[in-house]
């Protein structure tokens, strides 16, 4: 059993045997993390440092000028920056919540309920997630126009709620939960919905949280909705505004280098909520199962 003591999944504390893992993790983390550090550092660079030659990785004299430029650019275009933020927050919170709820409900149905057409439904769902989104853009526009949903908040949310990938993921997790759990609850007289809410949902929280993370990214970063389905400038989202800045500012014309700083600031603003959401939900992803009572 001496050998066994070295093996440990989810250890409580540091042990010498873990050192070898850090030899892989630390270089990987540097490779993955440096570009992120670069965005952060670039966003705070004043103009002369953006122009500096040779280029420098870290910022020397941080400034908020890039962020101020970004906000005043919005004001110039007629829609205050705060409006974009507000739109994005409303659309994203509603969308993420509904997406997690609907997706996990459907996944429970696919995994544990019995009815005709279940296999077919799962197969259609899998096919749908394999169909490249860009090819559906125009047909989806036609559908939305027919439904008369153009120019409403709903149209920024509704198309993004049903998440075939999410359904697939949550179903995989529910498949792993033992049927005995459900059977015994049924004997005690619980309905399917009660079983789902009280027993299954807590167990699959990691998967649901993963769907939350995914759906947050999709909705928060979505540009297509604001570009195609909404004409009213004051209903468009932050991601859309940044995308227009990215199209008009960068690379090409007048002042490519100054544009870089503003774009980095925009990337940072887009990125921070993503990471906050991730930190908030990752604990669920990584730790819930251990306490879920299946063990």
């Amino acid at each position, binding site marked *: 059993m001496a050998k066994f003591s070295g093996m440990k999944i989810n250890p409580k504390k540091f042990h010498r045997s873990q050192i070898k893992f850090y030899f892989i*993790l630390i270089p990987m983390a540097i490779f993955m993390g440096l570009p992120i550090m670069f965005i952060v550092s670039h966003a705070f660079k004043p103009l002369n440092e953006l122009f500096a030659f040779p280029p420098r990785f870290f910022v020397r004299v941080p400034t908020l000028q890039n962020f101020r430029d970004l906000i005043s650019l919005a004001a110039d275009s007629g829609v205050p920056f705060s409006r974009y933020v507000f739109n994005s927050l409303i659309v994203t919170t509603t969308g993420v919540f509904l997406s997690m709820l609907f997706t996990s409900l459907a996944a429970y149905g696919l995994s544990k309920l019995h009815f005709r057409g279940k296999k077919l439904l799962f197969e259609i769902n899998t096919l749908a997630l394999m169909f490249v989104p860009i090819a559906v853009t125009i047909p989806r526009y036609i559908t939305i126009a027919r439904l008369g949903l153009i120019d409403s908040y709903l149209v920024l949310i509704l198309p993004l709620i049903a998440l075939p*990938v999410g359904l697939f993921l949550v179903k995989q997790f529910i498949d792993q939960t033992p049927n005995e759990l459900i059977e015994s609850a049924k004997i005690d007289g619980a309905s399917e919905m009660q079983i789902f809410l009280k027993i299954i949902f807590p167990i699959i929280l990691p998967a649901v949280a993963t769907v939350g993370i995914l759906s947050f990214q999709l909705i928060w970063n979505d540009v297509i909705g604001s570009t195609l389905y909404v004409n009213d400038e004051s209903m468009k989202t932050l991601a859309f505004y940044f995308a227009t800045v990215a199209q008009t500012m960068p690379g090409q014309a007048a002042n490519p280098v100054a544009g870089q700083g503003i774009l980095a600031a925009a990337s940072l603003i887009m990125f921070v909520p993503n*990471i906050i959401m991730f930190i908030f939900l990752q604990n669920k992803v990584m730790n819930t199962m251990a306490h879920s009572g299946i063990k």
Partner: protein
Amino acid sequence: MIRRMNHPAWFFGPYLILFLTFIVVPVIMAITLSFTYFNTIETPEFIGLRNYVELLTRDEIFMQYVLPNTIKFAFIVGPVGYLMSFLLAWILAQIPHRVRTLFAIILYSPSMTAGIAMAVVWRVLFSGDQSGYLNSLMLNWGLIQEPVQFLTSPNYLMNIMIVVSLWASMGVGFLAMLAGILNIDQSLYEAAYIDGMKNRWQEIFYITIPSMKPQMLFGAVMAVVGTFQVGLIGVQLSGANPTPQYAGQLMVNHIEDYGFIRFLMGYASAVSVVLLLMIYGISKVTFNLLGERD
């Protein structure tokens, strides 16, 4: 109320309505369009299989660049990204919680920096003049005499796309696998060691992977779908569609090129149906490789 909710409709209703309206119906429309000539303005005109015939027999760019590029890209980024996700998830599962959280955030964050961030970081790093960081470094060290045109030269573009994609490949699949590994019943390992299991490799192949098969499958599907549906990177890096000499042209770029630049939506739909068939076929093969029979 909740006490009487037994019917499948309670579970499927909301999802199904949205799924059908915004996904299934548009997908069926797109598939139908692939049998038509549609310039996005006039009514589509039915032309049978002509788009497909054209694609397979006449479209030299597709056969010469797009298809080989897509296959090369997907066959490198898919498997390598998948193995990396699994290995890193497995390693992360074996260090304490706090450090793990920190590393998971760092490893996962590239996959969150979609869109413009991609353009900012990588275009600046690989920029072709002296202000490009990589060029500046290599000039400094005397490795090269003059700046390399990383992003506009066909020789480099594809490889850079592969590196950047691998950088961002620790996505949802990785998270799912991490959750899967942490979820494995510890007593399985103990029992296996008592039964004579000898080392870590046996542990991985006999306990870890079989116990987290659903997550392994999910990760695999994500890797296949994710790599075949990549399109933004090449265009964002090089700043043009088509990419320089079609060096970084992938299926999705081809669809964009035809659908939104040349406005031949029928043809673009045909390309996307072919892409769907490819993804579907390869996923099935992957499922079989991973030993899922259903």
